[in-house]
């Protein structure tokens, strides 16, 4: 429905333009059911239908954008008609934008996945049945997500699909829990039951006497989920061309050649294999793959259209210049040998609340969370009391990186700030010689 609606709005808008004006439209729409769980029961259940349209009016080198929440009905045209005079007034007051860059070679595309999900009520019933007797807490998000783009040149791009994401934890006691997340486009109640049963088995380990560590350096194995926490920090300006040029990138030393990561590190933005649309807000089609770091050396930044215009480069990303489908190359350590390779040290399943403690040094602090363990001679012997680390990613993924696992996991972002996320990461686990705990 929203696809036809966007086409209608684009056609109507074309008819409202004055000489010398152009536009782009960017639509993000979703029909989502959100069900929160606590104590293995429902905490809050509800549905959200939302559609946000970014209307950018262009005249010469001037631009201004108005975001509108659409109803999906005929009154949306009136919203556009009201927005246009306000944007025209704004264009009178802004300067020419020397870095405005829009795609002028229309490249239309369409990707629509067939609807395949059961009603969310069915999924909730499956979860309640599988969670019976367990201290389960988390959220199920399910439903359709659509993205669309249109412009005055007649370009039209559309992506639409149904998906679910169930992000949950099974609690043992206090802050001790096993955390899991699974997403897909087809619902599998049997796999859900197996996931919960497998997590429940791990709770026994969390009931062992707690190990409290003193601050210091420890060998550490990061599961793909824990590694994801570290790599997410790179997405906070580390991969952006603009931030690099502004000297605000945490990877400044890597990009300048002053620092180097382990030759094992090969990081890419693999948009062609991700869940986010390949088209973006200025109408460009993102490359299927951009090599960001190879052989431990900085190769490419993510370059939005504005940076491309400013620095004379080709755009390869959205204007936010962050990775949406990050991939880290696999290594040669079989996952089932990770504990043996770790020997004695910490097994980190999840990290939490990371931040830069010294951005220029790519130094990061954060906490351990959920099922993290103390390992001796390749055997899990105790759950860890939560520990704070404070260490440089240049070190952890540099000289201290001992191995990456052969197997990789696809981690789909369960976030829903403003709307349901479509970012994902494909990551191995990582073994490091030392991680610095500070508190």
């Amino acid at each position, binding site marked *: 429905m929203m696809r036809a609606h966007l086409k209608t709005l684009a056609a109507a808008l074309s008819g409202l333009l004055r000489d010398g004006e152009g536009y782009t439209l960017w639509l993000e729409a979703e029909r989502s059911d959100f069900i929160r769980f606590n*104590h293995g029961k429902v905490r809050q259940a509800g549905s959200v*239908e939302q559609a946000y349209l970014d209307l950018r009016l262009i005249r010469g080198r001037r631009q201004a954008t108005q975001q509108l929440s659409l109803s*999906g009905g005929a009154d949306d045209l009136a919203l556009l008609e009201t927005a246009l005079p306000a944007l025209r007034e704004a264009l009178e007051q802004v300067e020419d934008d020397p870095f405005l860059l829009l795609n002028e070679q229309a490249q239309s595309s369409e990707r629509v996945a067939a609807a395949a999900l059961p009603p969310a009520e069915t999924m909730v019933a499956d979860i309640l049945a599988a969670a019976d007797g367990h201290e389960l807490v988390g*959220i199920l998000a399910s439903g359709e997500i659509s993205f669309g783009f249109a412009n005055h040149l007649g370009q039209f791009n559309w992506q639409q699909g149904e998906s679910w994401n169930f992000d949950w934890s099974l609690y043992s006691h206090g802050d001790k829990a096993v955390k899991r997340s699974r997403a897909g486009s087809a619902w599998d109640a049997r796999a859900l039951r197996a996931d919960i049963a497998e997590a429940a088995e791990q709770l026994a380990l969390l009931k062992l006497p707690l190990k409290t560590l003193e601050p210091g350096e420890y060998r550490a194995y990061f599961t793909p989920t824990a590694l994801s926490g570290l790599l997410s920090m790179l997405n906070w300006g580390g991969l952006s061309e603009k931030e690099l040029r502004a000297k605000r990138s945490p990877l400044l030393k890597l990009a300048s050649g002053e620092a180097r990561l382990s030759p094992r590190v090969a990081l890419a933005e693999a948009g062609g294999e991700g869940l986010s649309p390949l088209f973006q807000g200025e109408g460009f089609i993102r490359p299927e793959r951009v090599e960001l770091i190879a052989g431990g050396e900085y190769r490419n930044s993510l370059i939005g259209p504005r940076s491309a215009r400013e620095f004379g480069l080709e755009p390869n990303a959205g204007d936010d210049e962050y990775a949406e489908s990050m991939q880290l190359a696999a290594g040669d350590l079989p996952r089932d040998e990770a504990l043996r390779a770790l020997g004695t040290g910490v097994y980190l399943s999840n990290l939490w609340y990371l*931040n830069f403690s010294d951005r220029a040094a790519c130094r990061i602090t*954060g906490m351990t969370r959920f099922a993290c363990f103390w390992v001796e001679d390749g055997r899990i012997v105790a759950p860890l009391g939560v520990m704070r680390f404070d260490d440089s990613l240049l070190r952890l993924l540099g000289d201290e990186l001992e191995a990456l696992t052969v197997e990789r996991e696809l981690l789909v972002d369960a976030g829903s700030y403003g709307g349901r996320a479509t970012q994902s990461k494909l990551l191995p686990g990582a073994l490091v010689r030392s991680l610095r705990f500070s*508190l």
Partner: protein
Amino acid sequence: MLDTIRRRFLALQPSADFCSLRYVEEDREQLRVRQGRQQPLSRRHDRGAMLTVLDGGGYGYAATADLSEAGLRAAFERARSWARATAGHGVFDYRGIALPHPGGRYQGQGSVEAEAWPRAALLDLLLSESAAAKGDDARIVDWSAGLVRQDIRQLYLTSGGGETEQQLRAVTPSLAVTVFADGRVQTRSLGGQYGGLGRQGGMELIAEAGLKGAGRRVADQALQLLYAPNCPSGAMDLLLMPEQMMLQIHESIGHPLELDRILGDERNYAGTSFVTPDMFGSYRYGSELLNVTFDPLQRKELASYGWDDDGKAAAKAWLIRDGVLERPLGGDISTARARLNGFALDGVANSRACNWNRPAIDRMANLNVEPGDKTFEQLVAGIERGVLMQTNVSWSIDDSRNKFQFGCEWGQLIEDGELKGVVRNPNYRGVSASFWRSLKAVGDASTFAVLGVPHCGKGEPNQVVRVGHASPACVFGDVDVFGGAA
């Protein structure tokens, strides 16, 4: 539009134990200048409604931007369907609570003159401050200034005849400068890089924030930081100025006192709390100098309002008095759940949603430390060896809100009761449960400032809300302080 919504809600005649409609309309505009150039102007007009239904002991919600009678009816039926589908499977039987049916109108500071927004003059101001920040200094590699305006109208209607209308305006000025030389980088900002100067009010907030003249001043401070020595390491006194106190309050008092966290709702995402329900009324949270209030009626703070999003009337409440924990940040539903567990806690009006498309949960609003009796000079004079820290730049805390590590943009040594030189990359770490007990001096009203956190994230589905924090400068003893990489 509000009258239309009223009529359509009346026409719904919702058949349920309880039904509310929360309509939210927001107009937003962002002006930004970076590196001497205007950035693309962005505006936002957002409107929609959340229907919430309690029926048969269940709870359901449905949000829609389709505000037609048919659209609202469809949302009501979807919400009721969720309430009925989950009745008997929920963490709480909603037949055990009577939500209020409030009435009245709240007009926030500056919201009556909400038309005033002299865009051209504001862009000129940003360009002028930006140019002043840069000068012709090649060491200044990034410099930006911005203004965000939000005009918000809310209408809350209940099936029992409740009706409140609220109108708010918030303005957030910002300015930041990054300097680079000899491989070293420092950033200094006006009030923080994440919207710390956000407050409710009109154009007067721009002058009050000190935006005029800030360009050169902030650039000078950034250059001082560039050549300053690293912050020393060790246990010492720590003088936190309001631009850091707000973050300290937010992370290690605000979040741990949220009752939904204490009840376990957030354990899968935002986390739990080291505070347990039995602590209220007796637990020594801080030294006897610590007094913390929840006050959504402080009109200039970012999260001021007349009623929360479950219709509870706003009122000032003491959460911590003379260091002793008195009450949690829990709305009507959470306090009712706590009562079922045997804890008769007094709550506050803090059940809030970020927008029409998210349900209300326990959030901070304006959470403040009350002033003490020391001037700034007296605070400094009382320190033999320590560091003053100002303006948060880094924040991290564990999921129980205990082990924290925070960093600031600006540090100054204090020796023998006197302020000394600037230090760069000042950081400190501690544990909430003991940190507040080391509070050894509290500044008076002359050191007090009203600040904001515009992007407080929490909840499943995720929500970002506006939060206000006001605080005097405070001194803590024997804190683990350290600097950045050498």
